[in-house]
């Protein structure tokens, strides 16, 4: 019993160590690659695969988030006669929390799964060993372009999600539920600050990096066979999902502390 517990603990610590080393190598190599123009075409290719092709699904996600929020919140606010404040609730929720988080979760499913499956298949068919055997660092050739593409484009995709979330909320609130358009936008403008939008977009850098690094790591370390690749994809999604939620909480605490430090009285307005 103790031996099993000990072995599992050592295994867990070793895994954390291997992951930390992988992250460190990725960071160092990414920094070097930024100065080398030779990596740029690889990054562009991944940006197309990761970013451009994700736009429709991210926009759909954002739109439904905004519309659902409007439908759910209207009754409560209307009961208090505050239905014109619906815009503040929807837009601040979309740009600060739900837009970034749900867009990142959608990306973890769409991009994370694909990255793990692709690199996992390359791993079990010895293609990653082939890259190494030809004197090329697989982190530089395979991981860095994917991580940088994900890191740079997730914030841009969050802006798309925010935009469609705002439009979705507006469509339900104003067109379907008949809230006055001018009042809707006035309350929204007074309640949502540039800070709120920026927080959502900044979260995107962290979410994007986490999704890409976790997915690439799981692909690089997946076990042999179809089952191994499938299991790695599942583990990559679960780990990405949990890391998104954990990062969202941590960034929420940090940004709130920063906000209260610089603008201590704004919360009273």
């Amino acid at each position, binding site marked *: 019993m103790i031996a099993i517990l000990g072995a599992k603990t050592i295994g867990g610590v070793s895994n954390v160590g291997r992951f930390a080393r992988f992250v460190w190598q990725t960071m160092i190599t990414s920094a070097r690659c930024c100065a080398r123009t030779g990596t740029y075409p690889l990054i562009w290719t991944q940006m197309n695969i990761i970013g451009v092709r994700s736009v429709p699904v991210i926009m759909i996600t954002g739109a439904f988030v905004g519309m659902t929020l409007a439908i759910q919140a209207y009754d409560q606010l209307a009961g208090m006669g505050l239905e014109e404040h619906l815009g503040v609730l929807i837009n601040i929720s979309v740009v600060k929390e739900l837009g970034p988080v749900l867009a990142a979760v959608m990306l973890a499913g769409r991009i994370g799964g694909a990255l793990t499956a692709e690199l996992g298949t*390359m791993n079990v*068919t*010895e*293609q990653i*060993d*082939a890259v*190494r*055997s*030809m*004197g*090329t*660092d697989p982190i530089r*050739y395979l991981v860095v372009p994917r991580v940088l593409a994900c890191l740079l484009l997730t914030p841009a995709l969050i802006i798309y999600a925010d935009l469609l979330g705002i439009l979705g909320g507006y469509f339900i609130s104003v067109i379907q539920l008949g809230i006055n358009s001018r009042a809707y936008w006035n309350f929204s403008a007074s309640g949502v600050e540039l800070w709120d939008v920026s927080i959502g977009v900044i979260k995107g850098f962290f979410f994007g990096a986490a999704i890409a690094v976790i997915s690439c790591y799981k692909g690089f370390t997946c076990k042999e066979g179809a089952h191994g690749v499938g299991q790695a994809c599942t583990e990559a999604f679960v780990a990405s999902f949990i890391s998104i939620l954990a990062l969202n909480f941590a960034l929420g605490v940090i940004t709130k502390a920063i906000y209260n430090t610089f603008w201590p009285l704004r919360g009273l307005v």
Partner: protein
Amino acid sequence: MKKDNEKNDTPVGDGDGIIVLKNLTKKFGDNIVLDNISLAIEKGKTTVVIGPSGCGKTVLIKHFIGLLRPSSGEVYFKKRRIDNLPENELNKIRTYYGFLFQAGALFDSLSVAGNIMFPIRQHYKITDWTEVEEIVKAKLAMVGLDGYQHFYPASLSGGQKKRVALARAIALNPEVILYDEPTTGLDPIRADIINELILKLQRELGETTVVVTHDMTSAYKIADRIIMLHNGKIIADGDADHIRNHPHPTVQQFINGQVSEDDLAVLRARGTITQAQFLPRDFKG
């Protein structure tokens, strides 16, 4: 084209061959795959490593190129110790090698030409793409596949994939080519084409060749020297005649394709398969 990294040939270690292993042991967990192996691979010769499946042949040649690190012992390439080098230093050493993987390991997302260009693009600053296309054409011509530049690996047969992988392996004009089971999975004619290619490349390029195989027809045809691995140790080492006449029973069983008495005893102990052991066709569970 300009070379990105100049090769560093500073001799550090010692030894007689181009690749030297000293007391190399490799363990995976508690499983000892290679047990205190010492070996020197001669320059310009074809060395064939034989042995039963799972005996550690592939593990052995992966140490030559630093794809695996030994649990203990030392690996030298051109008298320079390489098993303790960091990855970026090993990457320079690896440009001396060509490695043909068992299943080819071609990049699915790249065309045949893209695969062969890959190592060239990684190590040279390309200023003239026509020159690179000429190199690709020449390498493909060497393996008899000129004209296949725009094909993708998915549309090639098993033998063609291995030939393209071979063209990729020789793209940087390596000094050593490592072949991992080059004839496995091929019919006898295609297997012989690969054997002829190995001989042709050795003749024309004069490089050092190490082939891992359990195909004895191939081994006898191409080998200057044959090494047999068993239970992590070298049990036979010599030319084809030496191996043919080797007194070790395991060597004779392997080269003649005979099952050992121990294995037969295990099979017999499990009983004779009779009709009673098969489920009837209308079995409902």
